[in-house]
């Protein structure tokens, strides 16, 4: 494997992990906004407890993807940052407000108006961020940077539904309350249907408006990945309906990876189709090698730490946590 390919794999891994875990946190915000019914506050508490300990480290995958891009593929990074300035700025506003609002509303607990306002900001920004990240990804994948095109916007919508689906499935195992769990189960099934519908739209739009990207999507690698994504969507639906919540988690994660695989497969080895390939955008070999060595050393510290974090907070359903907003959001 060449250093260029190694660096590209690091970027892809970071994007994939951010989409699954960061996406689940955004999806949690979506369900927070849509919390309803007799257990509305309990839904919000479960979401807070699930996101609380992990959202900051999940968020670092994004930072890591960015620094890896500008370290290893600087001209492509500069090109993307210039041409997708507007959607990335909007996504950034969403990311910033989401993080701040989440912590503010948890600590403003008994100041009702303030907590309510920030809860609203938390939910709304959890839609804004993945929408514009998805939009930017769609605009990049076509190589045209047309972020206001129907295609790019439809990818944004698809990204939001994907986040909501992952979150609903993940939340199934974040509570011991069976009524609450059934709330999330209904949401998981609806979200899976929404993912299918929202997934068809960009495909149809690409067929008419983005012929070159559509052609790439029908290439062998992308085709396999998309077929896998569709199949996994069905599997998620079945597992959720049959209360196999642990397996459903794995399946929904795999489904997201397959979706990303379709995108990456379609445009490989282009970094920005028609503009930058991995090779043409790559830093010097010295830089790539130094980066890969650093990444390997970093992984030695990072992986056990992540395992520890998830072992402490994600083993078994959501027992109470001390900094949570439990019972405070009324």
């Amino acid at each position, binding site marked *: 494997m060449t250093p260029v390919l190694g660096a590209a794999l690091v970027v892809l891994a970071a994007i994939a992990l951010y989409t699954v875990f960061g996406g689940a946190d955004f999806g949690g915000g979506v369900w927070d906004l849509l919390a309803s019914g007799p257990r509305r506050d309990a839904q919000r508490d479960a979401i807070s407890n699930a996101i*609380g300990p*992990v959202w*900051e*480290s999940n*968020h*670092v995958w*994004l*930072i*890591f993807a*960015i*620094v*890896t891009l500008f*370290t*290893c593929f*600087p*001209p492509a*990074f*500069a090109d993307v*940052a*210039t*041409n997708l*300035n*507007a959607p*990335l*700025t909007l996504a*950034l*506003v969403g*990311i*910033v*407000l989401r*993080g*701040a609002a*989440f*912590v*503010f509303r948890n*600590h403003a607990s008994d*100041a009702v108006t*303030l907590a309510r306002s*920030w809860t609203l900001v938390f939910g709304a920004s959890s839609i804004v961020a993945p929408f514009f990240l998805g939009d930017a990804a769609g605009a990049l994948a076509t190589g045209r940077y047309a972020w206001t095109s129907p295609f790019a916007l439809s990818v944004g919508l698809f990204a939001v539904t994907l986040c909501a689906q992952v979150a609903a499935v993940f939340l199934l195992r974040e509570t011991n309350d069976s009524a609450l769990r059934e709330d999330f189960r209904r949401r998981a099934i609806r979200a899976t249907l929404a993912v299918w519908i929202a997934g068809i739209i960009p495909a149809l739009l690409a067929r008419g408006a983005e012929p070159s990207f559509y052609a790439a999507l029908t290439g062998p690698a992308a085709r396999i990945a998309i077929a896998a994504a569709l199949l996994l969507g069905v599997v998620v639906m079945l597992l959720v309906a049959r209360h196999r919540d642990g397996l459903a988690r794995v399946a929904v994660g795999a489904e997201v990876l397959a979706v990303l695989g379709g995108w990456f497969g379609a445009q490989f080895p282009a970094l920005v189709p028609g503009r930058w390939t991995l090779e043409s955008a790559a*830093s*010097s070999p*010295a*830089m790539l090698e*130094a*980066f890969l060595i*650093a990444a390997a050393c*970093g992984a030695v*510290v*990072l992986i056990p*730490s*992540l395992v*520890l*974090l998830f072992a*402490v*907070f994600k083993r078994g359903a959501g027992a*109470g*946590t*001390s*900094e*949570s907003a439990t019972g405070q959001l009324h």
Partner: protein
Amino acid sequence: MDQVIAARAQMGTSLAFHIVFAALGVGLPLLVVMAEGLWLRTKKRAYYDLARTWSKGMAILFAVGAVSGTILSFELGLLWPVFMRYAGGIIGLPFSLEGFAFFIEAIFIGLYLYGWDRLSPRAHWLSGLPIVISGAVSAAFVTTANAWMNMPAGFRLENGKVVDVHPIAAMLSPPWAVEVLHTTIAAYVVTGFGAAAVCAFALLRKTAEDRRDQVRAGLTIAMIVAAIAIPLQWIVGDVIARFDADNEPAKFASLEALFKTQRNAPITVGGIVGNDGVRYGIVIPNGLSLLVAFDPNAEVKGLDRIPENDRPPVAAVHYSFDTMVGSASLLLLVAIAWTIAALRKRAAPRWLLIGIALCGPVSVLAMEAGWFVTEFGRQPWIARGLLRTSDAVTIAPGLDVQFYGFSLVYVVLAATCWWLLRRVGTKPRGGERTDIARSAS
């Protein structure tokens, strides 16, 4: 708004905002770990309450620091794509390493904040240590990138193209060590004085009579950190001044507002900076020559040695420098007074509490001013001698709207943060459902 001005305004505002949260993000974990460690040792309830209160503040401050840091990592590309195209492949390594350090910080802050009931007291305390270490380490890595901007190294230019990149040499450009020390110590100065000021303020206003022990303990722990950090900061600052005199003459001449190269160069404090000299400043004869070379006859390079279009904005650098040194002088005096009182085992008298309370905002002022010195002092370059700031800016439209938009976001975040932190500080103890007996056993 002019494109370069708009981009600089946005970047400057973002950094000025983030640096406060970043500094507290580096320093606060140390204070919290000290307080919790004292609780483990002495089993005194006040230390436990203190650690809990501080860790709540840390939760809010760290989150705002994380999101405002995200703004910066985006803005590198959104505002300065030309710079990143040039520099990413040379100085990307410390950013990548900082990414890992930030990861460790975020992971263990999750464990620490949410682990009070889930981990044994000892394991919980241990989970704080990686935050202390990785916070300092990430500050260090990011500062090496700034050092490189001051003195780009680790590559050659061949017909305008960057060749022969040595990532490690770039990361360890000449100013790295002094800059890293100065920035990291600044974080402890600001956190120490900041936390001490909050405690002093509470003692003065008598707003925490039911928790006097906790507030006194907080004052002592925070002042220990501050009183150790501020003299060290003076020593490092002195080393940097001499380093700059040798290696960054434009910055040095600007911060001292020395227009003419001369022997027996004086130190000029304050004054009105004109186009070719300073009027009404306080002049210390021979001061600068003595400072730079320990010899009153030593020659010091002035701005006349710097081509006119390579000169920094002298007034901004000079006033920022004087503000930094003036503020740091007050910090040092208060730290000395507190140390004397503490060594005599006396409680800090009222006038000293007032001084300490004042040092909170003053320490932030010192840090911001120091940041201005290094950033204004590097202008008109974004990477000195390599790329001008005006050539590095994006061509994307709408920067003025972005500037106003983000400024509004900062105002809202700062106001909410302030309001929440006041509640954390003034709310009576309790709210935690932790059973102290269980935790202490």
